[in-house]
């Protein structure tokens, strides 16, 4: 199985193909429905974002509270399709890619190809396993959103599958 460290270079992304199983290490930012709405309000108002989008990876997830001795609680991916309306603009603004579960729209596929990005599918329902792959967690923004807040995760050997690659191929429509 391929091992990769985030962020990824364009050269690394060009070598990824839909269906590849990959272990990811590095930084990801959690964001789901409400956090995306907040990020868009900041973008619309030309205000600074809580983290730089440049080459960053967003993990569509809303974790459980961390039990003692763990960086986070259960933290599998949430359904990415709900973020179809948000992803293209973030990719156009420099986002390196996303991690989530399930198919995304044709508009997202086009934005991934245009920006040499990548969309990884984590395994939906494997929350406890993913919690073990998160070594550090830090609250970055929107604490009032509770589990929907933005957290910075340092992950190690986080298992994912390339779901939409920068060549426009997807694992879902083969």
């Amino acid at each position, binding site marked *: 199985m391929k091992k990769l460290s985030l962020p990824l270079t364009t050269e690394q992304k060009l070598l990824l193909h839909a*269906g590849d*199983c990959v272990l990811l290490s590095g930084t990801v930012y959690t964001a789901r*429905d*409400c956090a995306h709405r907040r990020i868009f309000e900041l973008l619309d108002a030309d205000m600074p974002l809580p983290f730089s989008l440049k080459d960053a990876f967003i993990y569509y*997830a*809303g*974790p*459980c*509270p*961390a*039990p003692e001795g*763990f960086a986070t*609680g*259960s*933290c*599998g991916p*949430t*359904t990415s*399709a709900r973020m179809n309306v948000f992803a293209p603009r973030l990719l156009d603004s420099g986002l390196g890619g996303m991690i989530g*579960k*399930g*198919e995304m729209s044709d508009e997202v596929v086009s934005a991934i190809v245009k920006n040499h990005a990548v969309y990884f*599918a984590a*395994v*939906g*329902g*494997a*929350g*406890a*396993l993913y*919690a*073990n792959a998160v070594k550090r967690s830090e609250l970055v923004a929107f604490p009032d*959103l*509770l*589990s*929907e807040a933005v957290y910075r995760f340092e992950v190690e050997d986080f*298992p994912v*599958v390339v779901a939409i690659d920068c060549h426009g191929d997807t*694992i*879902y429509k*083969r």
Partner: protein
Amino acid sequence: MKIVETSKIEEAVCRLAIKACVNMRGDCQRALLAAREREEGAARFALDTLLENEEIARKSGMPICQDTGMACVLIELGQEVSLSGMPLADAVNEGVRRAYSEGNFRKSICDPLTRKNTGDNTPAHLHVEIVGGDKVRITFLPKGFGSENMSYLKMLTPAEGKRGIVDTIVEAVKKAGSRPCPPVVVGVGIGGSFDSCAYLAKKALTRPLESHHPREDVASIEREAIDKINALGIGPQGFGGKTSALAVLCEVAPTHIAGLPVAVNMQCHCVRCEEEVL
């Protein structure tokens, strides 16, 4: 008259919630293991990851999935039981509050418009049926919304019949695609009214995966639907494969001469459902 303290119901709800969210049921494990043997590539990788996750959750006490769901509580209350103590709904909500705090579960309930989180995963969705006898049967079904969002209800005409029912079920699974964490378990309500049909579909999800409906005509709908669903090729997590559903479970109720309601309540590969009788 048998007296049951509602504090006992609170404790049972708390116990059931923790058990349901942390431990994958034996029938789900068996179904995933069997599916694993049929699949290859990314689909097999996904199933292996889920089986490994089951073990990690069980050993660490962490919930299987971060979406610890909306707390659906179904209570069959024997009419010879007299409840004493705090009101039943308060006891159920208190049990939910405690479980979601003690278990480090996610609080996922919010106002539909402001989206403000209630902070403790209450209120539970409580459904009470009055039945004969002196027992209280409590079923706890934490329902995640990745799958719930893919649910569907259609008012068919009587002329559409069995073929229409099977097509409705298969179409709902096809439209849901990779989103509800397939291989899915499909709860189906057939008959009743608009609202009771949806409840039947949810109740169907409380059945063991290996069960078949006792009525042969209903069981044949279950068989036909799962064969057609597994021919769709969606596969585990939508990665393609032979296993798109683990079970189709149908429940029926008499309906009006003018109608044929069909409700499809989508469930991911892990049915979290536990019950206790007091």
